[in-house]
């Protein structure tokens, strides 16, 4: 698929993001490029002002000694100055390396050292402390630049600079030598699209994180393709709230923002995202399924507390939306009366609800990262929100597939994205070749060679297939798909996702490969179950106590039962139903390495850590004592122990209308 290569030739001189910065400052000079809520007010910068800020900072960095080819770490939350650092670094030929701000000092030091960063631009004291504490492990580091001075007034370290002081250096340079600004712009124009644009460290689902290098031309081309696909323009806006170091944030907000010229809005703090979302009401939005899940959970909980009339209105018109909403969204024929009913519902419920959730202006919304429940997906679409799915990877610079507005489904991830080639190997693995495809892992040529095939396709490690309509369906990680002793196919993620659809279940981990049957660990959702406990006068002091409560087990047993019923309806999955389950005594946590920083369960690690519990699932015991070490956010360790109950679940005869339950 190289058909658009000619179309691209016209814009081929635009092959880096700094080039787009100059272009946007010229074509959208007085349009907002960036907003940030600070001191309760949305401060904004136009593209022209953004160019000024970046110019000053870039020249300051240069004066401090940043050179072409250097790596520069960017650590912190979504803030304008950190986004400007990306472009400032790129304009000098340096490579920005965003790092997860909530990484513990050890993980962070590993990445900074592996990437051999010369400079680090960080948000605040927290990050400065982490870096200063591990300085000895990062010999390449020559300067730390911080955005927020709070708490740093008494720090006297020779490598420490404030963001302002670096910009002041740049300004002094501009004042002293009027040609330096022009020289900087000339440097941008002469830069090559073959240079590395950004290096993104993977979240480390499997082992240590790897530095994924993305070339400038590839990044720009990919972003331009998808921006055209979704018709993004300078009139759009986004709330930049995703982790800065994640490919999704860098692609959806930064890359697409530069090529289409739309405005990025940075929230006031991570705790105010919901309020900021409502104030900004973005037109383009991305959130992982768990965010939609928690939105729906909070709506459901608040409706339960509402008055009877409101509850009735909600139930009545959410029902109408469920029947006709998606058809109306997709422009399919709908009877006139139903349309009128829907219009009334829009006035009474859908629009006010969308407004409260901050989704009132959404034109395109995406979700990805995990499978999303059909009911959850339909709920949002039936409100008139154009929620679609995409499938992507850091190695692809995000998009591999994405759904077209007219063909959206919950159980698939869409056909190949523009200019992407996909093939399925005999072993069922999905492989792709894309414009934004990575140029290699930093300093890991061997791993690169293992990941990329000889003919240039990237192995995703995911198992999947194309269905009849030509959309890709992902079942699981290729290596995670296993078999029970009976030979039945065991796809853990599929089972986990079915379980996680229930608002009361926050996390699920399924085991079964090489065993007689499937057993699962569950985490309850403290918000949902806690609310239920409150309404039923059940007192509890901690997660642990609530999780072990007899009635909570009864509720969860009902959910497991329903999950088995659903599994039994699918011929491929019916063989692997849940026989035994337990509710873990603690919430799985990224600080204990049980989840990745992007909140995905590390199944093998969890199995290793709770080995006695896995054994108890299969040896028939009714309860088991465990003692676990936990790490607090500040690095201190503690222990937590409990006797965990293991419960039995009902299983069902496979499909063909077999509603008859059979006790296990």
């Amino acid at each position, binding site marked *: 698929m190289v058909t658009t290569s000619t179309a691209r030739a016209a814009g081929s001189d635009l092959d880096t993001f700094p080039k787009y910065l100059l272009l946007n400052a010229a074509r959208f000079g007085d349009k907002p490029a960036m907003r*940030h809520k*600070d*001191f*309760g*007010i949305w*401060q904004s910068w136009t593209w022209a002002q953004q160019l000024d800020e970046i110019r000053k900072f870039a020249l300051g960095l240069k004066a401090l000694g940043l050179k072409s080819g250097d790596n520069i770490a960017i650590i912190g939350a979504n803030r304008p100055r950190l986004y400007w650092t990306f472009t400032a670094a790129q304009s000098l030929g340096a490579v920005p390396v965003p790092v997860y701000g909530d990484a513990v000092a050890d993980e962070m030091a590993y990445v900074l050292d592996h990437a051999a960063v010369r400079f680090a631009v960080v948000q605040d004291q927290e990050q400065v402390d982490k870096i200063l504490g591990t300085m000895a492990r990062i010999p390449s580091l020559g300067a730390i630049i911080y*955005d*927020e*001075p*709070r*708490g740093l*007034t*008494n720090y006297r370290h020779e490598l420490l600079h*404030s963001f*302002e002081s670096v910009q002041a250096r740049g300004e002094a340079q501009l004042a002293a030598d009027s040609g330096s600004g022009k020289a900087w712009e000339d440097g941008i124009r002469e830069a090559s699209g073959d240079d590395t644009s950004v290096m993104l460290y993977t979240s480390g689902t499997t082992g240590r994180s790897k530095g994924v290098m993305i070339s400038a031309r590839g990044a720009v081309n990919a972003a331009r393709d998808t921006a055209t696909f979704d018709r993004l323009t300078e009139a759009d806006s986004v709330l930049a709230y995703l982790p800065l170091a994640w490919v999704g944030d860098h692609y959806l907000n930064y890359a697409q923002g530069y090529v289409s010229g739309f405005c990025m809005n940075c929230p*006031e*703090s991570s*705790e*105010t995202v919901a*309020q900021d979302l409502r104030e900004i009401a973005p037109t383009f939005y991305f959130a992982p399924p768990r965010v939609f899940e928690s939105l729906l959970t909070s709506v459901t909980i608040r409706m339960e507390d509402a008055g009877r009339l409101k509850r009735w209105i909600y139930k009545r018109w959410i029902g109408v939306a469920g029947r006709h909403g998606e058809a109306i969204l997709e422009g399919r024929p709908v009877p006139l009366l139903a349309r009128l009913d829907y219009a009334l519902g829009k006035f009474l419920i859908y629009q006010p609800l969308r407004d409260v959730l901050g989704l009132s202006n959404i034109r395109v919304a995406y979700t990805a990262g995990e499978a999303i429940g059909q009911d959850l997906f339909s709920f949002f679409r039936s409100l008139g929100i154009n929620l679609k799915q995409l499938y992507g990877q850091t190695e692809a610079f995000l998009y591999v597939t994405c759904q077209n507005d007219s063909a959206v489904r919950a159980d698939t991830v869409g056909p190949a994205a523009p200019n992407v080639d996909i093939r399925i190997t005999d072993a069922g693995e999905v492989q792709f070749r894309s414009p934004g495809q990575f140029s290699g892992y930093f300093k890991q040529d061997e791993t690169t060679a293992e990941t990329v095939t000889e003919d240039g396709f990237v192995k995703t490690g995911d198992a999947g297939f194309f269905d009849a309509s030509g959309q890709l369906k992902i079942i699981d990680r290729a290596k995670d798909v296993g078999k029970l002793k009976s030979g039945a196919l065991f796809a853990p993620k599929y089972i986990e996702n079915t379980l996680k659809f229930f608002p009361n279940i926050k996390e699920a981990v399924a085991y079964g490969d090489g065993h007689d049957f499937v057993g699962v660990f569950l985490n309850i959702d403290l918000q949902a179950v806690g609310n239920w406990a409150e309404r039923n006068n059940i007192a509890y002091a901690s997660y642990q106590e609530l999780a072990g409560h007899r009635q909570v087990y009864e509720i969860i047993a009902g959910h497991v039962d329903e999950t088995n019923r659903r599994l039994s309806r699918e011929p491929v999955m019916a063989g692997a139903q849940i026989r035994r389950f337990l509710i873990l005594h603690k919430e799985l946590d990224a600080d204990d390495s049980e989840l990745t920083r992007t909140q995905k369960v590390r199944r093998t690690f969890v199995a290793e850590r709770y080995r006695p519990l896995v054994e108890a699932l299969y040896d028939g015991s009714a309860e088991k004592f465990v003692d676990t070490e936990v790490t607090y956010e500040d690095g201190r360790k503690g222990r937590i122990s409990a006797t965990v109950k293991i419960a039995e679940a009902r299983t069902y005869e496979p499909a063909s209308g077999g509603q008859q339950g059979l006790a296990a």
Partner: protein
Amino acid sequence: MSSRLAEPIAVAEQGAGEMLMEVRNVSLSFGGVKAITDISFDIRKGEIRAIIGPNGAGKTSMLNVINGFYTPQKGEIVFRGNTRRAMKPHHAVRQGIARTFQNVALFKGMSTLDNIMAGRSVLMKRNLFWQMVWHGPALAEEIEHREKVEEIIDFLEIQHIRRTPVGKLPYGLQKRVELGRALAMEPSLLLLDEPMAGMNLEEKEDMSRYIIDVNRQRGTTIALIEHDMGVVMDLSDRVVVLDYGKKIADGVPDAVKSNQAVIDAYLGVAH
């Protein structure tokens, strides 16, 4: 932007040691009950001064005397060079003394923002007429005060509860809002009555952090009453110890810790 935070803040004059307040021979009694007997001590500019003592030692009474809620029968108080005995709390506020309470005393139905704005009311200069029409000078003044309040909200990291009625907030956050309201008065002396009472360890650590920041970054002199000895010894520059309304020790934390009279007062003595 964040840099704006740095400007209005005067760095505490460390070790300047200039006298801010002096309590001279103060005695207070309710009928026949002697709450405070002939107590003298001083508070220096820029320090964190702790007042400690067993239950009923007269700590809160002492604070109430300092901010004018009680009038002592004997003795006098010198604050910023002015000597006085009787004073109303609102005079104390105008002179630059703000306080928080042992039991949270916020306007429960109002938002965090409005509660802190209420702390600014004493500094608002427009008359009732302008306040009512809420236009022209009054509006300009409101905006000016709102800016200061936003700085405090940023300082205490409570942006996410700006619009939340304080009655719905957890206790630790309510305490923080109360601190914010006291800070809004831009006091030169801040009285904290058991700022950590009823808090868990994490909340205590947070609150300690904020108290230190208020002192170091905003340059506010602080007098506090607290029962948690670990907190007191870590936070304060000097400690005065009361027992049965009398002063039994006064000095730096280490000296006070090893003072026999203090140990006896807390642990009791064999008679």
